[in-house]
C-alpha cells in the first residue's frame, strides 16, 4: 500500500482578502482517522479554511504542508464537494467519466468505474440524464459519486447540505458515512449541529477566523470550553 | 513566419482549385467595365483562345499602379499622358491604341449655365464657372477626371484656384458621381457608355457632345515581364494582339447599347 498523504499541517496560517483578515494565525494538524467537523457561524471563515487546506487558496502568510511531498499525488488523493454542486453540461455518467479522465484513468476503464460510483450513491438509473436537469439533492449526490470514483484519501465537504431539504440532506449524510466506512478521512464544514453530531468524531470550532476550540464531539457538545461556543450552540436548533 | 506561409499556401491551393489553368489579370477602368464592353468582348476571346480574362476595374490611376506593382498582366486604360509616363518608367512593353469613345457634358434640363446644344466644350465649361452652376467632379485620378482637368485648362481656368462651393469634388467612380449629380441637379463630365447604361438620371440630360476634344482614347499595354517576372507574358500578349487584330476590333465595334455604338476601334492609327 502506498503511504498516506496525511497528516496535513497548517502553521500560523493567515488569509486576508482586500485588506480584510479572514483567517488569523491558525495552526492545525489534521490526522488520518476521526471525521473532523469544522463548526462555526456564517462568516466565521469555514469556507476559506477549507479552501486553504484543499489548496484552492494560498495563505497570505504561514504554511500549509502535507506529509506527502509529491504535490501531484497530494492533489490527486483529495476531493472536495462544494455547497453548490458544479456540473458540466453533459450526462451524469459523463460528469464522473470526466473526473476520471482528468485523473488520468485509462479510457477503457473510465465508464465501468463511473458506473460503479453511480451505483454507490444510488444514481445508476439516472446515468444518462443531463446532469443539469437533476434535482439539487441528486446533483449533490452526483458530486459525491464523482469524488467517490477518485478514491480520495481526504474528502473535504463545504456545507454540502445547506441548500437541501431534510430528506435530500439525509441521503447525502448516508453517502458521507459510506465514505467514512471505506476509510476516507472526512473534513466537513457545517453550521448544522445535528449533522455535526451525526457524522463527526471531533469538532474544530472556528470563530472570526480563529480556532477557538478543538475537542471530541461529545465533549464539545456536553462541555464547550469557551463561552463563544456555548452561545453558538444555544443560537442554533439542531435537526433531529 | 514559416507557419503563416504554410497556412496561406493551403489557402492558395484551395483558391487555385477553383481557378482556371489559363487566365490573365487585366487592370482596367470602372467606366469600361460598367459600360458592359467586357461582358461582350471577353467571352469571344475566351472561346477563341481558352484564356479566361479577369478584369479588376478601378480608376485609371489605380489601374496603372496595379500594373506597377506587378499585380496585373495587362492594363487597358484611357489617359494617354499617364500611359506614356507608365511606358517611360519601362513598366509596359509597348503601348497600342485600341479604341476611343467620347465624353459628354451632362447637365440639368433647366440648364442654369445655358450651355445646352453648344459644340464648344471649353466655352461651356467657362460658362459653368461664370454662372457658378453646381458641377460634380470625379476627383479620383481616373481617365475621366484627367479629361475634365484638361478641359478646364483649355477653357483658361485654373480650377484648383478658381473653384468655389459650386464645384463638388467627390472622389467617386462614374456611377456614384452621376448619382450625386442627379441628386444635386449638377453638371458633370461623363463617358457616353456609363451615361447610356445609367438608370438613375433624375432631371439630367446631355448638354454638350461632339466636340473633338471630348474624344477619349484607350490604350493597352502588356506589363513588363522583365520588371515583373510573374507576369504571364505569352497569354497577356495574346490578349493584346487580339484586341488590335481585325477580329478584336470588329468585336469592339459591334458592341451597342440601345442600338448605339459606344466604342470606335482605331488600332490601325
Amino acid at each position, binding site marked *: 500500500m502506498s503511504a498516506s498523504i496525511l497528516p496535513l499541517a497548517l502553521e500560523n496560517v493567515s488569509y486576508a482578502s482586500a485588506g480584510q483578515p479572514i483567517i488569523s494565525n491558525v495552526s492545525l494538524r489534521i490526522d488520518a482517522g476521526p471525521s473532523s467537523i469544522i463548526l462555526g457561524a456564517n462568516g466565521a471563515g469555514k469556507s476559506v479554511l477549507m*479552501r486553504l487546506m*484543499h489548496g*484552492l487558496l494560498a495563505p497570505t502568510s504561514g504554511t500549509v504542508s502535507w506529509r506527502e511531498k509529491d504535490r501531484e499525488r497530494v*492533489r*490527486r488523493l483529495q*476531493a*472536495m464537494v*462544494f455547497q453548490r454542486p*458544479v456540473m*458540466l*453540461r*453533459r450526462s451524469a455518467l459523463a460528469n464522473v467519466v*470526466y*473526473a476520471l479522465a*482528468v*485523473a488520468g484513468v485509462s479510457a477503457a476503464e473510465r465508464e465501468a468505474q463511473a458506473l460503479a460510483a453511480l451505483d454507490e450513491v444510488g444514481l445508476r438509473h439516472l446515468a444518462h440524464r*443531463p*446532469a*443539469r*436537469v437533476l434535482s439539487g439533492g441528486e446533483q449533490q449526490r452526483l458530486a459525491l459519486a*464523482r469524488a467517490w470514483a477518485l478514491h480520495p484519501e481526504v474528502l473535504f465537504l463545504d456545507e454540502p447540505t445547506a441548500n437541501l431539504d431534510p430528506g435530500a440532506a439525509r441521503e447525502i449524510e448516508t453517502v458521507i458515512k459510506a465514505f467514512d466506512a471505506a476509510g476516507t478521512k472526512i473534513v466537513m464544514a457545517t453550521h448544522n449541529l445535528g449533522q455535526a453530531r451525526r457524522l463527526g468524531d471531533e469538532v474544530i470550532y472556528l470563530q472570526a477566523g480563529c480556532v477557538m476550540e478543538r475537542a471530541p464531539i461529545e465533549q464539545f457538545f456536553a462541555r464547550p470550553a469557551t463561552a463563544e461556543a456555548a452561545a453558538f450552540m444555544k443560537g442554533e436548533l439542531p435537526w433531529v | 513566419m514559416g507557419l503563416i*506561409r504554410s497556412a*496561406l*499556401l493551403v*489557402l*492558395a491551393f*484551395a*483558391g*487555385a482549385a*477553383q*481557378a482556371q489553368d489559363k487566365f490573365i*489579370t487585366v487592370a482596367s477602368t*470602372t467606366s469600361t*467595365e*460598367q459600360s458592359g464592353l*467586357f*461582358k461582350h468582348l471577353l467571352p469571344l476571346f475566351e472561346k477563341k483562345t481558352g484564356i479566361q480574362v*479577369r*478584369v*479588376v*476595374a*478601378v480608376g485609371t490611376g489605380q489601374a496603372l499602379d496595379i500594373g*506597377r*506593382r*506587378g*499585380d496585373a498582366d495587362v492594363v487597358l486604360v484611357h489617359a494617354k499622358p499617364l500611359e506614356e509616363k507608365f511606358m517611360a518608367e519601362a513598366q509596359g512593353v509597348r503601348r497600342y491604341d485600341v479604341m476611343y469613345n467620347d465624353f459628354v457634358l451632362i447637365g440639368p434640363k433647366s440648364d442654369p449655365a445655358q450651355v445646352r446644344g453648344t459644340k464648344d466644350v471649353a466655352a461651356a465649361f467657362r460658362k459653368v464657372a461664370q454662372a457658378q452652376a453646381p458641377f460634380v467632379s470625379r476627383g479620383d485620378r481616373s481617365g475621366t477626371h484627367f479629361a475634365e482637368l484638361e478641359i478646364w485648362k483649355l477653357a483658361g481656368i485654373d480650377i484648383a484656384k478658381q473653384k468655389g462651393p459650386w464645384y463638388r469634388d467627390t472622389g*467617386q*467612380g*462614374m*456611377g*456614384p458621381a*452621376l*448619382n450625386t449629380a442627379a441628386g444635386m441637379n449638377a453638371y458633370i463630365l461623363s463617358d457616353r457608355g*456609363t451615361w447610356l*447604361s*445609367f*438608370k*438613375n438620371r433624375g432631371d439630367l440630360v446631355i448638354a454638350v457632345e461632339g466636340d473633338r476634344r471630348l474624344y477619349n482614347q484607350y490604350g493597352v499595354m502588356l506589363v513588363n515581364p522583365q520588371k*515583373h517576372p*510573374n507576369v504571364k507574358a505569352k497569354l497577356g500578349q495574346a490578349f493584346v494582339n487580339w484586341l488590335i487584330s481585325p477580329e478584336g476590333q470588329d468585336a469592339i465595334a459591334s458592341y451597342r447599347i440601345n442600338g448605339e455604338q459606344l466604342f470606335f476601334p482605331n488600332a490601325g492609327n
Partner: protein
Amino acid sequence: MGAIAEGLRRVLELDRELWHIVALSLEVSLSAVLIATALGLPLGAVLAVKRFAGRRSLIVLLNSLMGLPPVVVGLLIYLLLSRAGPLGDLGLLFTPGAMIIAQSVLVLPIIAALARQGLEDAWREYEEQLRSLGARELEAAFTLIWDARFSLVTAVLAGLGRAAAEVGAVMIVGGNIDGVTRVMTTAIALETSKGDLPLALGLGFVLIALVLAVNAAAQLVKEAAQRRYG
C-alpha cells in the same frame, strides 16, 4: 415598396450569375468564420482562464480590434499579398483565398473577444470545481469551451454577420472580378454605382434573407441540443 418588388424580380432573372455570387459569398464568409473560430475560441479561452502580465492590455487591444475598419484590413492584406509585397509570390491577390484571409483577420477579434467575455463568466462558475478535480489550465479552458458552447454560438454568429456584411475588405483584396471574386456585397456596391438601385436593393434582400436563414438554423440547432444536454 414597388422598388423592392421590382428588385426581387430582377434578382430572380439573374439566375446562374446570382447563384454563383451567393455560393461564393457563403464560401468566403463561412470559411473565414471557420478559421476565425478555430483560432479565436482557444485564444478567448486562454485569455479567460490564464493570468499573466499584460493580460488586461491584451484584452483591451482585442476588444478594440473588434472595431477594425474593413477597408483598413483590406488595404493591409492587399499590401501583404501584392506582388510587390512580402507574400506576393503566393499569387493570392484577386482570388477568393485573399478574401478569406482578409475576412478571417476581420472576424477573429470579434469571436475571440466575445468568447473571452462569455468564458470568463463561465470560469467564475467552474473554476473551483475544475481546479479541485485537478484540471490543468489548458485542459480546463477546453472543457469550458465545450460546456459554454451554446453561448459561444452567439459569438460565432456575430462574426458571421460581420463577414457577410462587409464590402471594404473583399473589394480591395478581391477586385470584384466578374465570375471570380464578385460576392453579394461587392455586387450590390457595383449595381448601386451603376445607378441600378432596384437590382441593388433586390440583392440586398437576398443577402439579408441568407443571413437570417443561417441564424434561424443556428437557433434551432441550439435549442434542440439544449433540450438534450440541459
